[in-house]
C-alpha cells in the first residue's frame, strides 16, 4: 500500500455565508497526479490554498504526509505552489527567482545557483538565468515558475491552473511535459483546472468539484464512462441526459441515465441489431467540426439529443442528413449509464 500524501477529513471553509469548501474528504497517494476539476467557484482553488496554508480550515483536519497541518503556516509546509499568474519576483533575475527558496534556506550562493541552473535545465530554459521575468514569454515564465517550485524538492507540488494563460498549442505541449516531469521527479502533483480535457489527459485520479463538494472521485476513465451524477456527466465531456418516462420506456428502469454523443448511431432505417435501444427523432441542426460531425436531434417525445459521428468518409462533400430529416437513433444497451437517484 502506498502512503498518504495529502488527506482531507471533513474539511470546511466558509467565506461569510458561502460554503466554499463543504465537508470535503479525500486521500491523495504519494507520487500521484491528482486533479481538482470543476467550474469557477466550485471550491477547487480554495482546497489547493488550504493545502498550501494560505487558507485556514474552519472545521475538519488536513494531513500532509500523515501529519496534521491545520495550524502550520505556509513557510513551514513541505509544499510548493505554481501560481496561476506565476508570481515571479519582478525585481530579480530568473536565476535568483529559481534560487529564492534556497537562499531563504541559507544555502551558499555558488551551490544554490548551481541547483537553480539544473532546475532551469530540467524545464528546458538553459541560459536564460540572467534575464528578468519581464523579458520572457508566457510559456517561459510558466517554466520558471515550475523550476522555482521544484528546485527545493518539495514532497508535493500544487499547480493552480498553470496552463490557463497559454495558447492552445503550447498548452497541449505543456500537458505532455508536465506529466513527464511528474514521472521524472516522482513527487505528488495536485493540479487545479476547469479544463476537462486537461484533467482527463494527465491525471491518475480526478476529484470533480461542484458547489464546494466533491461530486465524484475516481480514475479518468471511470469519471468519463461512469459519471455518478448528472453534473459530472455534463461537465466532463458532453452527455445526453434522459429522465422520467422516456428513461423508463427506453431502459426499463426509473432512474435517469446518460448516453455519450459518440455512442449513438444515426441511421435512416431502424437498427435491427439485438440489445439495441432505438428511438426516433427529427434533425434540428448539423455542425461540421472536421474530425466529427455534431448533430442535434429533437426526439419525438423527449429532449434535444447531441450525436457525434466520426467523419470517416473523405469523399462525401455533403452531409448525410439535413435539417428536418427523420432519423433513427440507436445505441447498445451497455453504453447507457444510470445515475444515482
Amino acid at each position, binding site marked *: 500500500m502506498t502512503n498518504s500524501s495529502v488527506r482531507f477529513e471533513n474539511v470546511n471553509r466558509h467565506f461569510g455565508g458561502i460554503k466554499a469548501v463543504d465537508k470535503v474528504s479525500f486521500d491523495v497517494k504519494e507520487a500521484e497526479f491528482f486533479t481538482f476539476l470543476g467550474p469557477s467557484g466550485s471550491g477547487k482553488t480554495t482546497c489547493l490554498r488550504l493545502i*498550501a496554508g494560505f487558507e485556514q480550515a474552519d472545521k475538519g483536519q488536513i494531513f500532509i504526509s500523515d501529519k496534521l497541518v491545520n495550524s502550520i503556516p505556509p513557510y513551514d509546509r513541505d509544499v510548493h*505552489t505554481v*501560481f496561476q499568474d506565476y*508570481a*515571479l*519576483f519582478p525585481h530579480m533575475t530568473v536565476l535568483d527567482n529559481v534560487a*529564492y*527558496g534556497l*537562499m531563504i534556506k541559507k544555502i551558499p550562493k555558488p551551490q544554490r545557483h548551481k541547483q537553480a541552473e539544473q532546475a532551469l535545465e530540467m524545464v528546458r530554459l538553459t541560459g536564460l538565468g540572467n534575464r528578468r521575468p519581464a523579458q520572457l514569454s508566457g510559456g517561459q515564465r510558466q517554466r520558471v515558475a515550475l523550476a522555482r*517550485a521544484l528546485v527545493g524538492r518539495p514532497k508535493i507540488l500544487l499547480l493552480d491552473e498553470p496552463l490557463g494563460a497559454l495558447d492552445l498549442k503550447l498548452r497541449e505541449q505543456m500537458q505532455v511535459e508536465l506529466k513527464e516531469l511528474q514521472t521524472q521527479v516522482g513527487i505528488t502533483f495536485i493540479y487545479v483546472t476547469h479544463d476537462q480535457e486537461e484533467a482527463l489527459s494527465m491525471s491518475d485520479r480526478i476529484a470533480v468539484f461542484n458547489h464546494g463538494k466533491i461530486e465524484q472521485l475516481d480514475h479518468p476513465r471511470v469519471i468519463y464512462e461512469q459519471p455518478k451524477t448528472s453534473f459530472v456527466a455534463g461537465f466532463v465531456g458532453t452527455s445526453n441526459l434522459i429522465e422520467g418516462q422516456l428513461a423508463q420506456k427506453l431502459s426499463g428502469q426509473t432512474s435517469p441515465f446518460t448516453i455519450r454523443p459518440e455512442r449513438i448511431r444515426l441511421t435512416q432505417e431502424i437498427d435491427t441489431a439485438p440489445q439495441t435501444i432505438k428511438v426516433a427523432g427529427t434533425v434540428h441542426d448539423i455542425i461540421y467540426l472536421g474530425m466529427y460531425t455534431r448533430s442535434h436531434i429533437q426526439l419525438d417525445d423527449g429532449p434535444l439529443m447531441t450525436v457525434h459521428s466520426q467523419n470517416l468518409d473523405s469523399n462525401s462533400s455533403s452531409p448525410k442528413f439535413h435539417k428536418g430529416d427523420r432519423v433513427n437513433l440507436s445505441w447498445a444497451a451497455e453504453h447507457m449509464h444510470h445515475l444515482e437517484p
Partner: protein
Amino acid sequence: MKDRISWPLGLATIAVLLFLHIPFLLILLYAFNTEEAAFTFPPPGLTTKWFAEAWRRQDLWAAISLSSRVAIIATLVAIILGTLAALALSRSKFFGRDSLSLIIILPIALPGIITGIALRSAFSLLGLKYSFWTIVLGHATFCIVLVFNNAVARLRRTSPSLIEASLDLGASSLQTFRHVVLPNLATALVTGGMLAFALSFDEVIVTTFTAGQQQTVPIWLLNQLTRPRDRPVTNVVAVFILLVTLLPILISTYLTRNLDDLSRTGK
C-alpha cells in the same frame, strides 16, 4: 494621425505658461540686481555681491540648517509610517478601512491653516513647548500622505500572489518583507520621500503655527520681505529654495517615468 492643436488654443497655452513662469525668471534676474531696494526694469546693473552677502548671513545659515533637519526627519518618519499604513490598508480588509485611508490623506487636502491651528491647540493642550519636534510633527502629517499614496499605488499594481509565493517558498513574513515587498516598493518610497522632502522644505503655513520663535528658510524669507533693505538677498534665497525643491521633484518624476515597465512584470 494626431490631432493638431488649433492656433488660438496654442497661443493661450503659451500665454498661461509664460504668466506662470516669468516670475521665476524675474526672481532669478533680480538676484543679480545692483539696486538695493527697488525693482526697476530693466535692472540698472548686474552683480553677484548678493550671493556673497547671503553667504555671510549667520541667521540664514541657521534657518537652512533647521529646514534641512526638519525635512530629513519628517521625510524619514513619513517613509516609515506611510509604508506601514499602506501595507496595512492594502493587504487586509477590516471595518473602517476606507475611512482610515481618508483620514490619512486628509492633511494634504485640508487647508494648512486648519492643520496649523489644530496642531497648535493640541500642543498647548498637551503642554508641549515649541521645538524642532513640533515642526517635524506638523510636517510629517502631510509628508506621510505623499509616501502613503505612492506606496498604495505601487501595491495596487503588484500581484498579491508575490507575497504568497515568497511564503510558499519558505520565507517568513519578515524575510518576505525584506526580499520581496521592500524591493518592489523601493522606487515608490524614494519618489514619495523626495516629494515629501520638497514639500517640507518650503512649507510656510503649518510651520508658522508650530515653530514658535524658530525660523525655517521660508519663514526667514517672509520676515526679510517686511524689511525693504537687502531685497536682492531674498531673491538669492528664493532661487536657492527653488533649486532645493525642484530637484527632488524632477528626480521623482524621472523615477516614476520608468515605473510603468517595472511594475507590469509581476505577471
